[in-house]
């Protein structure tokens, strides 16, 4: 090819600022200063201050608040419930999304388009709306129960105010992201690769297990990390749909701070949640970094 692809033949993007790199650097830093400042004052500083505060008991360093946290049965039940909810909901959302993405990958037409549209619908619905809507839909005497009774099923027991309630809401909310990520990943698996395997006599489960899944591993891990982090930090869904006990961490924190007026304990709960989230986040960033290094 002639130099069509790179019209400026290796010229840096943007026209040169003959004013020099120094003033460009200054302008750049000045322009990003405000949002970075916002991030520092409202994310970095409060977090650092909070971590420090949790270790400071009456003027000296102590981990005693953390001992209290990890030795309190109710607190630990909440933490456990939160993590289990994250794990189960994320795996369920990934499985369902993977099924949808697979269907979309290998079919075309109006039905596929509509399924695609439906799977993205939750992007347009805020948490609070879907939480309320699920209360009305799945709750006692809700539309779902009415529909079931129309077909003669009368044994419906509502998931509202049980752990199944928030689970279903998290499942509902977390369909679009993995569908998008997995569809993008699946579209990179060529038809030829699948046909070649089919030619060699491979059955659908084997194709799924040995050809599609390995190629999707990274996408699945990234989607899992994102969903998991979102769920363990969620407030609205468990607050509106969940049982009074155990509580998910955010609800627990809110009650500790707002109702029990115990900021010290609330901060410890917040730090523990942050640490768990940042471990998953760190793993996620490492996956990202590895993949972008591999792409080079």
């Amino acid at each position, binding site marked *: 090819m002639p130099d069509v692809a790179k019209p400026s033949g290796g010229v840096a993007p943007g026209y040169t600022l003959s004013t020099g790199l120094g003033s460009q650097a200054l302008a750049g830093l000045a322009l990003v200063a405000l949002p970075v400042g916002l991030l520092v004052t409202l994310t970095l500083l409060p977090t650092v201050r909070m971590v420090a505060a949790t270790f400071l008991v009456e003027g000296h360093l102590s981990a005693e608040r953390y001992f209290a946290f990890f030795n309190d049965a109710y607190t630990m039940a909440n933490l456990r419930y939160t993590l289990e909810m994250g794990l189960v909901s994320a795996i369920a959302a990934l499985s369902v999304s993977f099924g949808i993405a697979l269907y979309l990958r290998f079919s075309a037409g109006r039905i596929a388009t509509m399924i695609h549209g439906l799977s993205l619908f939750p992007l347009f619905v805020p948490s609070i709306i879907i939480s309320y809507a699920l209360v009305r839909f799945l709750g006692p005497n809700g539309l779902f129960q009415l529909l079931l009774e129309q077909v003669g099923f009368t044994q419906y027991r509502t998931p509202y105010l049980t752990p199944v309630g928030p689970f279903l809401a998290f499942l509902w909310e977390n369909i679009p992201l993995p569908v998008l990520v997995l569809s993008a990943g699946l579209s990179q698996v060529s038809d030829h690769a699948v046909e070649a395997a089919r030619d060699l006599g491979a059955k659908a489960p084997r194709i799924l297990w040995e050809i599609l899944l390995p190629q999707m591993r990274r996408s699945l891990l990234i989607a899992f990390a994102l969903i998991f982090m979102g769920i*363990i930090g969620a407030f609205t869904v468990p607050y509106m749909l969940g049982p009074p006990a155990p509580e998910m961490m955010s609800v627990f924190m809110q009650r500790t701070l707002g109702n029990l007026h115990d900021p010290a304990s609330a901060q410890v709960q917040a730090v523990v949640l942050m640490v768990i989230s940042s471990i998953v986040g760190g793993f996620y960033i490492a996956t990202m970094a590895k993949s972008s290094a591999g792409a080079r």
Partner: protein
Amino acid sequence: MKRTYFGGLILLVSMGLAMLGPIITVILWAFAVKWRYPHLLPTEWGMKYWFAMLGRETVITPILTSLALTSIATTTAALICWPAAYAFARLKFPGRQLLLFSFIAAQAVPKFALFVSIAVIFLKLGLVGNFWGVVVVQMLSAVLFMIWIPTAAFRGIPPALEEAAFDLGASRLRVFLFITLPQAMPALAASYVLAFVSILFEVDSALLIGAPTVTTMPLLLMSLSAQVIVQEAAVLCVLIWVPCFVLLLLSRRFMTARGIAQGFGA
């Protein structure tokens, strides 16, 4: 072939029920005057509860508060983030990648836990329940959309477009105002809509930092949803969500896999 067709149809129907069922329920409730068990559908329709709701000051005030709060927070965030996005996309400065990355990394911090840490500080400063305190905190929710989408948009403008204008005699300011900005406008508008809607419906910061003095629309919705009269919350849902849904649909071009994954830091 037939098997896949029926499989698809079953998938479509079950997904339609799961995805749209809850929202349809709310819409039905909003226009129901009487809907008693075990009727499948409301037995009496009407806008009765709309008029009742819209006539109440305790409903109108939170809505106005929310709109004011969201407009101020989103607009301010846009004013500080869009220029930064331009800088990230077009200027070279030390720490550019690291700073851009810090906006992703900040998303790994659980929001509610973060708001707890801010709330504790605001408690000491007497900022809890302060309108402007809520505005500042809600701007945080906008930063992500306002940095990522515009940065990608500015990067996507071919440099030749700007060069051509500069070459024809335009000043750098003029190039920016007449070429760069209009080219990026759809993406900027989309980032504004996304941020606006996410702030409008944000519960966490409103609850931790606004309550009890600053009552926002989502907080009102929460308290209404616990009421005996189902229709009130349903009316509020439909009233606020439907316009937002339309706006979001208009900016759906930017809700692509890449956009969203980037939004979450992927």
